[in-house]
């Protein structure tokens, strides 16, 4: 296969590769500009924790945008639920093991309420969730009116946003390195390579075309190297944080659902052509309820992660998160037209935006410039997306 043909065959993936390359470029540029401070274990650890709640929202938002809707209410919903969690722990003296499931269920119910307005009452999602934005903003101020900022004392709860997975004291092969994190990283690489080779083998036995072997190997090496690099950096600080573990679990679960299950297939079918989906026996209403319900659930999780990260619930928690999540999804290649958008690349989108914030903060750039840079990155990403999409079709 000539290089030209190879590239042509890969057109589908160029969008995605472009995003990975852009991310690596951002990391390299900031690392050089900050004389290595950006890539330091401490900074990357903090960056990942600070991005966790937006990443979780971006995962849910991806599916919402895939089915051609939008959810503006998620930020203040997350803030409100974080405050309710704090109140439940501090004033109602509920156990943390009761509080967390309760908050998650409340989030899912809030999402189903949105879905009711959208799917049942046929209110455009923009309007329905704008109402949610107003309502939850008010509710957040209402629940925190008597208390102001609520300090959370529960150590288990706070560990979710600030804690790290434990290391095994007995194993201390490399001093100052978090061995458990390293082991997890090595396992992740092994699983990744095994999975890729296995799926390639199956594809070949079924006589379908596969990526040319050289590109396949490059892909394996690059992604393995990135995982190894991140693992090494994280292991050098305090290891893998619980927030990272939660985000990874959410991303893996949602990726699996989106790509491997009937439910996921139906979500993308509804996004691609709702009328066709309905004619083929897929309930658009059911899918809408499911997607908004999951969005509410993830909003609750984001609220928990954030309040636990701050060890407190504030009166302004959640301000603007919905827009950050939407931006992350678009940077990650989700299409406004619906039907297109992958979960892992939305995580990448969140990481790109988080890296920009972190890097520009380290460089002590003014907030005004930071906003303008982010605007350019968002616009650039979408222009790139539209341009590559046109070429392929």
């Amino acid at each position: 296969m000539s290089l030209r043909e190879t590239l042509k065959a890969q057109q589908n993936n160029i969008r995605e590769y472009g995003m990975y390359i852009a991310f690596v470029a951002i990391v390299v540029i900031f690392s050089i500009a900050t004389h290595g401070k950006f890539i330091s274990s401490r900074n990357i650890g903090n960056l990942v924790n600070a991005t966790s709640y937006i990443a979780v929202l971006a995962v849910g938002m991806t599916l919402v945008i895939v089915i051609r809707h939008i959810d503006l209410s998620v930020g203040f919903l997350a803030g409100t639920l974080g405050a309710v969690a704090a109140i439940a722990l501090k004033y109602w003296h509920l156990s943390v093991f009761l509080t967390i499931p309760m908050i998650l269920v409340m989030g899912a119910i809030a999402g189903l309420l949105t879905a009711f307005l959208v799917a049942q009452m046929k209110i455009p999602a923009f309007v329905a969730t704008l109402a949610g934005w107003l309502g939850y903003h008010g509710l957040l101020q209402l629940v925190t009116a008597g208390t102001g900022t609520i300090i959370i004392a529960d150590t288990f709860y706070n560990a979710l946003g600030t804690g790290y997975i434990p290391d095994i004291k007995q194993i201390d092969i490399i001093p100052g390195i978090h061995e458990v994190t390293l082991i997890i990283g090595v396992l992740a690489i092994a699983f990744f390579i095994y999975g890729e080779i296995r799926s390639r083998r199956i594809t070949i036995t079924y006589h379908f075309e596969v990526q040319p072997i050289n590109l396949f190997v490059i892909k394996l090496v690059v992604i393995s190297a990135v995982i190894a690099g991140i693992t090494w950096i994280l292991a050098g600080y305090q290891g893998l944080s619980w927030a990272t573990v939660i985000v990874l679990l959410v991303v893996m679960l949602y990726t699996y659902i989106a790509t491997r299950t009937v439910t996921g297939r139906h979500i993308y079918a509804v996004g691609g052509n709702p009328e066709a989906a309905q004619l083929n026996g897929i309930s658009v209403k059911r899918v809408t309820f499911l997607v908004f319900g999951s969005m509410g659930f993830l909003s609750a999780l984001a609220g928990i992660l954030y309040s636990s990260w701050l060890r407190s619930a504030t009166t302004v928690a959640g301000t603007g998160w919905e827009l950050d999540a939407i931006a992350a999804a678009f940077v990650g290649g989700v299409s406004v037209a619906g039907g297109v958008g992958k979960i892992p690349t939305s995580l990448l989108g969140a990481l790109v935006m988080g890296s920009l914030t972190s890097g520009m903060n380290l460089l002590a750039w003014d907030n005004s410039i930071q906003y303008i840079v982010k605007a350019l990155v968002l616009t650039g990403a979408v222009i790139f997306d539209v341009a590559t999409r046109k070429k392929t079709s």
Partner: protein
Amino acid sequence: MDEATPVVEMRNIKKNFAAVQALRGVDLVLHHNEVLGLVGDNAAGKSTLMKVLSGAYIPDEGEIFIEGKKVHLTDPLHARRIGIEMVYQDLALANNLDVTANVFLGRESVSNRIGPLGVMNTHSMEQEAQRLLDRLKIDIPSVRLLVERLSGGQRQAVAIARATAFNSKVIIMDEPTAALSVAAISKVLDMVRELKAQGASIIIISHRLEDVYSVSDRMIILRQGRKVRDCPVAGDIDEFRERVVAYIIGARDDFAQQASPAVAG
């Protein structure tokens, strides 16, 4: 089963939309392994009749028999479950999904279940989709191609492949050759012939009389919600076209005698 029993028999189907009588008592019979052309001017009732058969409309009056058994169709899914497949004019494809996903849209095969989640058996679906394309001699390089990257003719082929995927008893095609290039039209017509050769029973709605002429065994002409002709397709194409047009515009009517008392009543 008795081969003489028609696959589809519709008797005296009536359907009104407010004051408009879209169907005024239409009879239709489709035999096993027969291709039936359904023609008529705009608003003659072709699509309405087929929407009744595919479960999208519930008729005000009349009976439907599938292989001799009376059925009351409630919705398109119900119709599909008993083997009535419709290829819609706008194809009802999800362009963002690949060929396999579209062939199995809404009927994905599941390898195992995790709680409420069905895990798809992707490879078996891909193989089955490939087998269907091969069987219908459809020229699509890969079942993993997104539908948005296919040509109009290839998309029509995917929609037809879907209709044949689940042991359908009857396949209804709504204007399968509209908006296609000449080359693509001939491929679609080849596909119809191939399906017939494999034993399918097909109803084709078409504006293009030459298409009906070239693939149909029999044709029904509707005019203003009534059947005005029901006859085998035979003879010379020019003569055929001239005769059919006479029926379509109302210059001739084989069932005028039967219709008048009904109108009077």
